[in-house]
């Protein structure tokens, strides 16, 4: 499995900073994330082969969470944020289970930091910078998600196998 640290950190940023910080009932959303992450982390360890699909799912969730910030408020109901929060938390927990529970620290730290920052920014109604950051996250997520499904080009095939 590719290195999951960046995906977990950006998932924390997208979920915390964007979904929670700019969603209603932030406390409920944070609780949902924590519960889902805990459940994912204590489930029986998935097969090692599920690492790459979980990583692809994480990048997809980053795109969804970041992209949803560009929707008008009437198209971002609390239910959507709750679903994003639960699925992101669960994915982070499962990914941590496969990659090592220590990697969840990246998700937790990024989630906490970005939530605090985004709540402060939301109070000041500084939406434009946040939307710019959301755009970057969509681009990074799209690139990394694409890498997981592209066929390996000859120059990147594993070498020295014989």
């Amino acid at each position, binding site marked *: *499995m*590719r*290195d999951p640290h960046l995906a977990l950190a950006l998932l924390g940023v997208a979920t915390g900073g964007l979904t929670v910080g700019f969603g209603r009932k932030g406390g409920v959303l944070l609780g949902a994330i924590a519960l889902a992450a805990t459940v994912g982390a204590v489930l029986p360890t998935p097969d*090692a082969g599920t690492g790459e699909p979980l990583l692809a799912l994480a990048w997809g969730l980053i795109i969804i969470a970041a992209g949803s910030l560009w929707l008008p408020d009437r198209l971002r109901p609390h239910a959507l944020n709750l679903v994003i929060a639960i699925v992101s938390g669960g994915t982070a927990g499962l990914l941590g289970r496969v990659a090592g529970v220590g990697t969840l620290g990246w998700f937790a730290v990024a989630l906490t930091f970005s939530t605090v920052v985004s709540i402060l920014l939301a109070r000041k109604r500084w939406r434009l910078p946040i939307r710019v950051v959301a755009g970057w996250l969509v*681009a*990074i997520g799209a*690139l*990394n998600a694409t*890498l997981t499904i592209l066929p390996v080009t000859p*120059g*990147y*095939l*594993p*070498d*020295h*196998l*014989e």
Partner: protein
Amino acid sequence: MPLRFAPLCLLAVAADAHDFWLQPARWQAAPGEPIRMTLQVGHGPYRQRSPIPARRIVRFAAIAPNGRQIDLRPGMHIGGADDATAAFGAPGTYVVVLETDNRAESHLPAIRFNDYLKVEGLTPAIALRTSAGRMDADGAENYSRHAKTIVRVGLAGAQPASRVTKPAGLALEIVPEADPLTIGRGGALPVRIYYRGTPLAGALVKLNDLDHDAEPVAMRRSDAQGRAVFRLPGKGNWQLNVVWTRPQPKTSLTDFDTSFSSLSFGAIE
């Protein structure tokens, strides 16, 4: 920024698929008990059975405690549930050796080839490419494998383990100067690296814990006498590996002829 990171991420993936070693299912067996072995390549999450075809294996033998060579090729079944089975009737410590020809080829883009040379410590090759102005050129090499493993038959101390510290005649070889099976926790394990029969200086030797082998436990450069000394952390499954290369003639289709060597053993103290 993301586009620049992408090839570096894939580099980190690819640079780990170099190492090759003999992995017995168990390091100790009763006299006559079959010992199953597999050929492993890569470390950490990239570790897998080597897909090497049997026709490339030119030597698969065991060196008995009395120095006799036992041909193990009849017990090879590459690609099966395991790759080979061997059984030894007399108690003692046996050194199993495997060598391949050098017909395997590797062709890598410049950035990956330079990274591979750096990771494996092949500084003479880097210097050669630099002086020839070929650091931006793709790299191609022929490579061969030279693996050894130490297995013990019968009870410890039943026979003197005299062959472990003697060269087995591999083109690139790690020769321990003390029996790794008798070194206690924290004890020194001196090894000498031989390349085509002479001590090799400046080679990067790595010690891997086969139970946690994402990263080497220790790395040493062989000194002018070809010696490197490691501290064995203790009981476990261990592997030493070293890589060396030499330039090919100008008429060759590849740039370098590279040898990979390994020594695997299970420390029981």
